[in-house]
C-alpha cells in the first residue's frame, strides 16, 4: 500500500469537537489541514491550537471569512487543498470534511478502500437537469443569474433581484468548456484531479465566474472535476442529508446503531454534545471492521419519514401542532366509516344484525339529542370520549374526527337521522372516508308504531321530513366527497336484498360473505293507510316514495306486480 488519505477540515463552530476529530485522524497517520473561519475569535483559535498541539502532520491554512452560499467557502477549500498538496507529498486522496463531521469506520478501512480505488474521485456530480434536491427552484439559474445580495441577511433583496433578472431575461454566459454540475459539498478527490483543478491554466477565469454563482461550494469542484477526472464515482463518502428546508439533519446519541449499520465512512452533522457518538466512533477498533460498501438506505428512510411527517402529516389527525385549514386536511378523517340513515327505523335489531353479519363496530345514533349512543350503551368510549351530548355538541366535527382516530384499525358504523343533531352532516358529506346509505322517509315507520296523538305525529313528521329533505338536497352538491347511496322507503322495501348485500360488501370488503340472514323488517301493516292519513291532514310524506302500490290489495296493485317481476 502506497500513499495515504489526507483530510481538509473546515471549522467555524464547536471547535472542541473539530480538534478532537483532527487529533484522531492525525494520530491514525492521516495528515490534516485545518481551515478556521476568520470570524472565530482569538481565544477559541488559541484553544484549538492547544488541543492539537504536538501533532506534526497537522497544518493550518490561510484563513478566509466564510459566508454561507458564497465563494469564500470555495476559496477556503482551495487554500487548504494547496497547503495539503504542497506539504504532504505522500497523500493520494484528499478528503474534504467539516468540524462537525465524525468518522464512522476505522481509518485503516478507509485507507484500504481508497487503495482499492486508486484513480477514482468520489464526488457527487450531477447535471442541473437531473438534480432532485435543489430547493427554491434555483438549479440552472444558479449558473446564469447574478447573486450580489446575501440570502441569509437580505432575503427580500435577493428574491427581488432574482425576479427582476428573470423578467428582463438576463443570462450570464457560462465559460466555454464548462458543463455545470451540482453535488454534495463533501468530496474525496485524487491528488491528480485536485492538482489539475488547482493548476488549471484557466483557473482565474473559472474562479471569476464562480464568484458570482449561487452556492458555489456545491458546484465548483463538482463541475471542474468533470473536466479533469479520469474516473468519477458520483457519490459522496460523507453521509450528509438535508431536510425539506435545506438545513442539515443532525445526528444524536440515539442514532448510534443506525450510524454503525450504515457502513458509511464519515457522517455529518453531529450534535456537538453527542458524547456517546464521539466516544464510540473516535477509535480504530478493528472489531467493527466489516469492509462493507456504504449503505445509507436506512438513514435515508428515517429522514424521508421525518420530512413526510412535517409536510403531509398524519391524515385525519387534529392536534396541537397540526390544525389544517379547510381543504388542506389531506383526509378529513383517518379511516373509512359508514353512516346509516333509516335502517334502524325500518329493521328490528339492525345494529346487532350488522355487527354479526359484517363485523366492525356498530353504534346507535351517535348524534342523538339526548346522549351519544355508543355501541353496547357505553358511557365512555375509546380514547375516553364521553357520551355527554353537551361535550359532543361543543365540537361535533372534532368529536367525529376523534372517534375515527381513536378507533384506527376497526371500522366504525353508526346510525344517523333527521331526529339527530345535524351540525356534523356537511362535514361528513365533504369527507371521502364517509359512506352514507340513506332510506328516505323511514322515519315514518316508528311514528306509525308510536301510537301517539295524531296531531303530534303529524307535526313531528313534517319536522323530520323538512330536515331530511335538506340533507337530500345537499347530497347532490358539487362539493360532496362522501360515497352516497339513497333509496326511497318504498323502493327499498320492495327489494331489500341487493342494497343490504352491497352494504355488507362495503363494511367488510375482504371476506365476500353472502347474505345468510336478512334483518327483520318491522311490520308495515297499515303503513300505507298511515301515510294516506298524513296526506289527508295536509302533510305530504313524499320522501317515503310511492307506497300505495305495495300495500293495497293485489287487485289494484299492477305497479307492485311489475316491480316484483323486475326484482
Amino acid at each position, binding site marked *: 500500500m502506497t500513499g495515504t488519505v489526507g483530510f481538509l477540515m473546515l471549522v467555524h463552530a464547536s471547535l472542541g469537537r473539530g480538534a478532537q476529530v483532527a487529533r484522531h485522524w492525525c494520530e491514525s497517520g492521516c495528515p490534516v489541514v485545518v481551515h478556521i473561519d476568520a470570524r472565530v475569535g482569538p481565544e477559541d483559535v488559541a484553544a484549538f491550537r492547544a488541543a492539537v498541539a504536538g501533532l506534526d502532520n497537522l497544518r493550518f491554512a490561510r484563513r478566509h471569512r466564510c459566508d454561507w452560499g458564497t465563494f469564500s467557502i470555495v476559496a477556503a477549500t482551495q487554500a487548504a487543498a494547496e497547503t495539503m498538496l504542497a506539504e504532504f507529498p505522500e497523500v493520494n486522496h484528499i478528503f474534504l470534511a467539516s468540524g462537525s463531521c465524525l468518522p464512522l469506520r476505522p481509518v485503516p478501512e478507509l485507507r484500504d478502500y481508497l487503495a482499492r480505488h486508486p484513480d477514482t474521485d468520489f464526488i457527487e456530480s450531477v447535471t442541473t437537469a437531473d438534480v432532485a434536491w435543489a430547493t427554491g427552484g434555483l438549479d440552472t439559474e444558479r449558473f446564469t443569474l447574478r447573486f450580489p445580495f446575501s440570502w441569509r441577511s437580505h432575503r427580500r433583496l435577493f428574491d427581488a433581484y432574482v425576479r427582476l433578472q428573470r423578467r428582463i431575461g438576463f443570462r450570464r454566459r457560462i465559460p466555454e468548456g464548462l458543463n455545470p454540475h451540482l453535488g454534495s459539498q463533501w468530496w474525496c478527490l485524487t491528488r491528480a484531479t485536485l492538482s489539475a483543478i488547482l493548476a488549471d491554466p484557466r483557473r482565474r477565469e473559472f474562479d471569476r465566474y464562480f464568484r458570482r454563482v449561487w452556492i458555489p461550494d456545491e458546484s465548483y469542484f463538482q463541475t471542474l472535476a468533470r473536466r479533469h477526472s479520469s474516473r468519477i464515482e458520483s457519490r459522496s463518502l460523507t453521509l450528509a442529508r438535508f431536510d425539506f428546508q435545506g438545513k442539515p439533519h443532525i445526528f444524536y446519541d440515539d442514532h448510534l446503531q443506525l450510524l454503525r449499520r450504515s457502513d458509511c465512512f464519515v457522517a455529518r452533522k453531529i450534535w456537538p454534545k453527542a458524547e456517546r457518538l464521539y466516544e464510540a466512533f473516535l477509535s480504530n477498533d478493528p472489531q467493527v471492521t466489516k469492509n462493507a460498501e456504504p449503505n445509507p438506505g436506512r438513514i435515508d428512510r428515517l429522514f424521508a419519514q421525518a420530512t413526510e411527517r*412535517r409536510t403531509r*402529516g398524519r391524515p385525519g*389527525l387534529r392536534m*396541537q401542532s397540526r390544525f389544517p385549514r379547510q381543504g388542506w386536511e389531506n383526509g378529513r378523517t383517518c379511516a373509512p366509516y359508514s353512516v346509516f340513515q333509516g335502517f334502524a327505523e325500518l329493521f328490528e335489531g339492525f345494529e346487532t344484525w350488522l355487527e354479526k353479519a359484517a363485523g366492525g363496530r356498530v353504534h346507535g345514533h351517535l348524534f342523538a339529542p339526548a346522549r351519544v349512543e355508543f355501541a353496547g350503551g357505553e358511557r365512555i368510549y375509546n380514547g*375516553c*370520549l*364521553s357520551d355527554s351530548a353537551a361535550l359532543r355538541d*361543543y365540537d361535533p366535527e372534532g368529536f367525529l374526527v376523534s372517534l375515527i382516530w381513536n378507533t384506527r384499525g376497526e371500522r366504525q358504523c353508526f346510525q344517523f337521522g333527521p331526529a339527530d343533531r345535524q351540525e356534523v352532516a356537511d362535514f361528513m358529506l365533504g369527507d371521502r372516508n364517509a359512506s352514507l346509505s340513506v332510506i328516505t322517509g323511514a322515519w315514518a315507520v316508528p311514528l306509525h308504531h308510536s301510537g301517539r296523538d295524531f296531531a303530534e305525529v303529524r307535526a313531528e313528521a313534517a319536522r323530520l321530513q323538512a330536515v331530511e329533505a335538506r340533507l337530500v338536497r345537499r347530497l347532490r352538491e358539487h362539493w360532496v366527497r362522501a360515497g352516497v347511496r339513497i333509496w326511497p322507503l318504498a323502493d327499498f322495501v320492495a327489494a331489500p336484498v341487493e342494497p343490504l348485500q352491497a352494504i355488507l360488501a362495503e363494511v367488510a370488503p375482504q371476506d365476500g360473505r353472502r347474505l345468510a340472514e336478512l334483518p327483520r323488517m318491522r311490520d308495515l301493516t297499515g303503513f300505507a293507510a298511515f301515510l294516506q292519513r298524513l296526506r289527508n291532514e295536509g302533510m305530504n310524506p313524499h320522501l317515503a316514495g310511492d307506497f300505495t302500490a305495495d300495500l293495497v290489495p293485489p287487485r289494484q296493485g299492477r305497479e307492485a306486480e311489475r316491480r316484483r317481476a323486475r326484482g
Partner: protein
Amino acid sequence: MGLLRSYRLRLQRKRWRIRAFRKRRELSPRADRTDRIRPGDILLFATVRNEKVRLPYFLSYYRNLGIRHFLIVDNGSTDGTAEYLAAQEDVSLWGTGASYRRARFGTDWMNWLLSRHGSGHWCLTVDADEFLIYPFCDTRPLPALTDWLDASSIRSFPAMLVDMYPKGPIDAVPYREGQDPFEIAAWFDSGNYTIRRNPRLGELWIQGGPRARAFFADDPARAPALNKIPLVRWQRGYAYVSSTHSLLPRGLNLVYDEWGGEKASGCLLHAKLIDTFGPKAEEELERRQHYAASHEYRAYLAAMRQTPDLWCKWSERYINWRQLEILGLMSKGNWA
C-alpha cells in the same frame, strides 16, 4: 391582518409589559443568584405556593433535562417552600404576599422576570405540577431540542397539558416528598380533546381530558384550557398574555401547521389530580385567587364528592413519549 389590528395588538403588548413593570415592586428578592446565569443557559420560571412536598422531584426532573437556573416567585407559602428554595444553589427566589389574581394569576410576575433575565435564553415557564415531555426526551437532553429549534429558526415550542390521574379515588394514595407523581397518577385520556382556533391571537384553544368529562360534562365551554406554549426563546418585548396559553407578538402562537403537516410539539404531564388536589381546591376556593372566581375549583369540589374515580377502562397508562406521539397528542415534526 389589518394595520389597525396589528397596532392594537402592539398597544396591548405594551400594556402587559408596563403592567409587568409596575408589578415588579411586589417582588422582593430572597436569594438572587442571577449573576450565575451563563449565556446559552436554559432557564426555568415558575410561581409557587405551598409546594414544598412537590419541589424536590420537580427540581431534580428539570435539572436532569438540562435546566441550568430556576427563577421562582414564592407567593406567600407557609410550609417552608421559601426556605427550601432559597437553599438551592441553582435557584433565584423572589417573595411576594401580593394578590395572585391581581397579578393576572402570576403572569405579570413571570413577564417581569422573563423580560429582566430571560432575553436571549430559552425559557421554560411551568407550574410545579407540570412536567415537560418532548420528542426523544429519553435520549436527548433539552439543549438538543433548543439547538435544533435555533437551527430551524423556531422561536416557540408548544406542549399541551395532559391531565394525569390515578386508578381509583384520587386521594387514595398519598404522595411522598421526592416521589415521581406519575407512579400514582399513571393514567390519561388519549383522545377526547377539542380544538378551536382563536382568531384574535392565532393560538389554538384546546379543551378536554378527564377534567372536562368528569367536571364539565354539562358546560364544556368552561372546561380549563390545555394549550400551552411553555418554551420560548425570549426576547425583550415578548409578553405572555394569559398564563402560558398565548403570547404577543402573535407570531409566537403559530406553533401549528395549517397546511396538513405536523410541527414538532411536546406535552406537559400534569400531576394535579393526586391527593394534594382536594386540600388545594378547598384552600383556593377560600382564597378566591383563581380564574373566573375560582369557578373551576368549585366545579371540582362538587364533582369530587360524587365521582372520585376518573379512571375508566379506556384510560391509557403512560409509558413514554413515543406512546404520546403514536396517539397523536404530540409530534416529532421533522426532527429525526
